[in-house]
């Protein structure tokens, strides 16, 4: 059992946020203004919400509703300008259908941004008071959904942090949790491993189709896409090709069967290991998994990346002791101790699982303490995903 926030729809939250979510970039200032007036509410500012592309509009609607419905969110105030292509009422309806406590304030209906801010402030104070009266109670850890991510990888990521997370993933799945692995760009060259781990032929084929689709999209940018998804930092850290990066990356998934493949930002229906179609961009990938209901992220890094999420606490795992020592204030667990010969994979895996359970019960992560609340959507439209 863990102490968490039980939501009316049966999901459990590990945080109890009141968030201000503009449905369009034009309403950002209202969210920022109110966050200064009402301490504790979280403004999620972003550049999205209005495009000519129907695929992009549908996806943004889904993701915004998913963010509002994340179990870590007590309540959401959507802020619409009123003329944008992502329709505020549709986001509201979708979020409420999924069980979210959600309200909508539309600037053009309120009069101007000042009157909209007043309306949002009033709702914020009400929700913040309500949220403060909700207590953590005994909940089942099997209701946790864990997002896996790796970023700023180096050659050690695949040798220490990712395999340790893989063992932690096996343990968490055996405890009944759902674990989402992602970043299809980092399956190129390692898809045979995931395919062999699929629970059935349908999931196996979906994995292979998704990797093939991603490779085709990458080829639009550059036919020689083998070098595309590997950054200067990866190369500086000793990674040579996308195959090498992928073979290290995929180890986060551990050894349990892939039960399902889900679309970006959508809720998994199965328990166990689930693959989400996200790009390799860390923030875009994490936002997709958080919209899909992940309450906590486990994020490995070799070169050292400090990023977090406005909704889910992100636990950072260093692949090597040099980066851990240099970035101790940004990192939670050191898997470099495996390379140093001081700890075993099982030791670090157990440390990661313990950290997940502590964080689930309120302990802050390094990224939360440092104030990291990065938020980005993948660039999806009628022409495919732009990487």
């Amino acid at each position, binding site marked *: 059992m863990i102490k968490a926030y039980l939501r009316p729809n049966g999901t459990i939250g590990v945080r109890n946020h009141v968030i201000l979510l503009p449905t369009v970039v034009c309403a950002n200032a209202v969210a920022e203004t109110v966050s200064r007036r009402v301490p504790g509410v979280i403004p999620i500012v972003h550049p999205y919400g209005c495009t000519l592309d129907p695929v992009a509009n549908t996806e943004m609607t889904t993701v915004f509703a998913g963010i509002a419905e994340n179990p870590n969110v007590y309540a959401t105030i959507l802020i619409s300008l009123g003329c944008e292509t992502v329709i505020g009422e549709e986001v509201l309806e979708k979020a409420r259908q999924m069980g979210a406590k959600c309200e909508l304030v539309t600037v053009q209906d309120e009069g101007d941004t000042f009157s909209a801010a007043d309306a949002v402030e009033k709702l914020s104070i009400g929700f913040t008071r309500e949220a403060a009266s909700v207590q953590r109670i005994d909940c089942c850890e099997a209701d946790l959904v864990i997002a896996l991510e790796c970023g700023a990888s180096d*050659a050690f990521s695949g040798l220490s942090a990712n395999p340790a997370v893989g063992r932690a993933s096996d343990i968490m799945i055996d405890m009944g949790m759902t674990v989402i692995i992602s970043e299809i760009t980092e399956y190129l*060259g390692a898809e045979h491993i995931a395919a062999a781990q699929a629970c059935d032929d349908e999931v196996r084929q979906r994995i292979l189709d998704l990797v093939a689709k991603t*490779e085709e999209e990458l080829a639009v940018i550059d036919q020689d896409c083998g070098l*595309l998804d590997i950054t200067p930092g990866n*190369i500086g850290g*000793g990674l*040579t090709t996308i195959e*090498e990066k992928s073979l290290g990356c995929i180890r986060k998934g551990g050894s349990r069967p892939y039960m399902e493949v889900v679309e970006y930002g959508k809720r998994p229906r199965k328990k166990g290991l689930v693959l989400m179609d996200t790009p390799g961009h860390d923030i875009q990938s994490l936002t997709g998994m958080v919209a899909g209901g992940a309450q906590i992220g486990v994020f490995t890094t070799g070169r050292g990346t400090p990023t977090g999420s406005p909704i889910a606490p992100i636990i950072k795992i260093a692949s090597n002791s040099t980066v851990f020592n240099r970035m101790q204030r940004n990192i939670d667990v050191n898997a470099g101790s495996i*390379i140093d010969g001081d700890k075993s994979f099982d030791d670090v895996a157990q440390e990661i699982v313990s950290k997940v359970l502590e964080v689930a019960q309120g302990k802050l992560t390094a990224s939360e303490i440092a104030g990291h609340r990065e938020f980005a959507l993948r660039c999806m439209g009628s022409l495919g995903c732009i990487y």
Partner: protein
Amino acid sequence: MISLRAILVDPSDNVVTLVQEGRRGDWVVWDEGRVLLNEDIPLGHKVAIYDIPKGRSVVKYGVSIGKATADIRQGDLVHVHNVRSERGKGYSDDKSIS
């Protein structure tokens, strides 16, 4: 004689990963094997433990991570200057690698 540690992930690999920074002339050791470095090799980078002729696979984690674009000698740094990914459309049209 300086001897440095390296990791061999899979017995079929033809590269190891250095866990310390290596200098030309250093010995690198792992499990039952060792190799003499032909050049300086940074932390976390790979060294060939066998000769890898041009066009052959560089193997790590027991599978190919790309093809050698030049003859790689035992003890050489193996990285973007002498390995190329096999992934991506159009690669098969690339005549630079045989």
